[in-house]
């Protein structure tokens, strides 16, 4: 990716995920605005947590054999539980509200604690499905498929349409219930409709984006918009705009820096609130104009930043040919082994090139690819373990790498690599953090270095091994092409 604008291209692999967060950012603040104005913000925190408990519950039921598999989709089962628990929770909270016993905040706090506890307990009951449940609860919106995007667009499109159609009724019932009764009759229908929309958005949103991100989208844009406007129409529009800004900027930073999307978006949303309060000293119009300017400016600036990565230099440009290519260090705490059903491996075993005990891993594959590319750049490659079998992988820390090389009486250049993160996500992309350095051993000067920190798309991968192989190719291509 040369510039962030590429994320807006429909052909971009993660474009459905960007659209998905954009949709959430557009619609959720409209619902959240009413939660903020009605002083029921905690509902926006509690209901997503209840939905999360529902997801964990249905997974447990399915694992125990009480629920059939709904196709091959994990989301289908989770959605069922999310919807069920959300509406049950809303019904129960509504019933307790009617009875008027205790503090409203107290009820919501207790419900939040209970839902959180149940989520953990259901996961404990279902150890086999813990990873799936955790993934769903984390809300991997970044792995949204086309089908899920269509469902999201359909549900949130309907919510948006109803919100726009009945915005006057929702305002009236929220602001002045007595006038609403005189002009529109029984108010309960509008309350029910508003909470129904909130419940639908939360139940579907939690499974797509996770409870944290959903709460962020519901509440933070509305809180940021409130100090800057004095009109309801402007408030709703600004909240929606800030939601979309939060979604786009958050998505950009998440992809660019390989940060988890939920916490990135929520942090950005909180920054928007601080910014809004700082701008409150200006008149509302100036404040809104400045905030829009900053939002749009930050998005454009962030997305248009062109990364000018320098490729690995040619051997002749640095007047050196001898290069010790160290083993790539694995700092992930995972073995990063590739599946053994690789047909190429069988051929290699038959040819006696690899022992049958050996299992190929990402580090070796990466070093093989690096070796080929470095040779093309004119380097004469030697492997440290061929000099001394005691050589293991070099660390990417310059001083440590130079020390190890000198202790092994190596001279010339060394190329070191260290993988800090390697996570294959749904075979669609691999989250990578890896450091590479070209170091002159004699004086410890770093001639070239690069940190790869991003989600590497692997669109054509059909299994985890293929995804890792494709990611290695992409990374090496990146290092040498600039």
């Amino acid at each position, binding site marked *: 990716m040369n510039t962030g604008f590429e994320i807006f291209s429909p052909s971009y692999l993660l474009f459905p995920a960007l659209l998905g967060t954009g949709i959430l950012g557009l619609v959720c603040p409209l619902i959240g605005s009413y939660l903020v*104005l009605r002083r029921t913000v905690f509902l926006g925190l509690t209901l997503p947590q209840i939905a999360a408990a529902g997801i964990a519950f249905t997974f447990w039921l399915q694992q125990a054999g009480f629920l059939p598999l709904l196709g091959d989709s994990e989301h289908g089962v989770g959605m069922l539980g999310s919807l069920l628990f959300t509406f049950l929770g809303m019904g129960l909270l509504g019933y307790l509200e009617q009875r008027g016993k205790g503090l409203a905040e107290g009820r919501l706090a207790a419900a939040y604690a209970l839902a959180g506890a149940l989520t953990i307990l259901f996961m404990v009951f279902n150890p086999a499905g813990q990873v799936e449940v955790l993934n769903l609860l984390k809300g991997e919106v970044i792995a949204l498929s086309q089908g899920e995007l269509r469902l999201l667009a359909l549900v949130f499109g309907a919510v948006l349409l109803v919100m*726009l*159609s009945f915005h006057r009724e929702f305002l*009236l019932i929220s*602001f002045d219930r007595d006038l609403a009764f*005189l002009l529109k009759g029984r108010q309960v229908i509008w309350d029910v409709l508003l909470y129904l929309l909130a419940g639908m958005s939360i139940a579907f949103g939690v499974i797509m984006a996770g409870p944290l991100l959903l709460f962020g989208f519901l509440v933070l844009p509305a809180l940021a918009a409130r100090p800057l406007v004095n009109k309801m129409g402007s408030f709703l529009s600004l909240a929606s705009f800030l939601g979309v800004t939060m979604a786009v900027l958050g998505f950009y930073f998440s992809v660019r820096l390989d940060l988890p999307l939920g916490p990135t978006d929520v942090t950005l949303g909180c920054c928007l609130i601080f910014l809004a309060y700082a701008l409150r000293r200006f008149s509302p119009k100036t404040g809104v104009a400045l905030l829009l300017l900053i939002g749009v400016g930050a998005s454009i600036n962030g997305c248009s930043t062109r990364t000018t990565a320098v490729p690995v230099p040619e051997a002749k440009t640095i007047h050196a040919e001898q290069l010790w290519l160290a083993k790539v260090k694995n700092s992930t705490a995972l073995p990063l082994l590739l599946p053994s059903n690789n047909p190429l491996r069988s051929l290699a075993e038959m040819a006696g090139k690899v022992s049958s005990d050996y299992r190929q891993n990402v580090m070796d594959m990466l070093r093989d690819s690096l070796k080929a590319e470095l040779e093309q750049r004119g380097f004469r490659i030697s492997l440290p373990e061929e000099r001394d079998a005691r050589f293991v992988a070099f660390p990417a820390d310059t001083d440590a790498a130079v020390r190890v090389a000198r202790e092994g009486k190596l001279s010339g250049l060394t190329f070191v690599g260290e993988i800090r993160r390697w996570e294959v996500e749904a075979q669609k992309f691999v989250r990578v953090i890896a450091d590479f350095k070209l170091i002159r051993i004699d004086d410890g000067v770093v001639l070239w270095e690069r940190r790869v920190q991003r989600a590497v798309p692997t669109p054509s991968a059909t299994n985890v091994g293929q995804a890792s192989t494709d990611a290695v190719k992409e990374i090496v291509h990146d290092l040498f092409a600039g």
Partner: protein
Amino acid sequence: MKSEQDVDAIRSAGEKGLKTNPAPLVSLHNVSLGYDSRPVLADVNLAIYPGDLFGLAGPNGSGKTTLFRAILGLLPILDGSLSRNCPLSNFGYVPQSAALDPQFPLSVAEIVEMGAYGRVRSYQVFPRDEKRQAVEALDQVGVRHLMKRSFFSLSGGQKQRVLIARALMVLPKIMILDEPLSGVDEESRRTITDVLIKLTREKGMAVFFSSHDLMMVQRVADRIVRVDKGKIWVEKGKMSHQP
């Protein structure tokens, strides 16, 4: 701003020309009102006709708001009978401005336009005619110049006038005002009383307002409904205009 003599002239003109319609807009017969089956007011007998200017006087907590809420259908009656000869959408209600939540970002224009929400379809764009009518309503209470201001940044008197404009947007047959004169400046107080008198005399609207200030009610209202210690009775008003 009208002088006391002008107000007198309006009032006497109205008294001559109106009260021709015998059907009461609201009538209460032996009504008991209260909460959780505990009566706050008992044996309430009252009939409000078009053109009536009623003042409801009583100390705080005596049941003034309870009576209003029952008339507006917001509180079920415990006993007796209450009848209305016009739909609830013909009731213009002016709550105490302090009862409204300042958390809502609302301009004066948005507040007043709410009065027309009963007539505008849900998915319809807010009609221009209604917008024009909102401006006229604000004009009527003398706060047209504030229409773009934030409602909650206004003074108590200005807020009260805006809420009256909102009630006028309903195109009401009867106006119910809960403490419209409490906590308002002198200029707003005069404007509000002028508007209430005009509405009854010139438009034949019934007006029923409450206040804990008996002297104020006696100065403005034609008839005074007194509430105190669970009892209710009616007195003649217009203290300052009696010979």
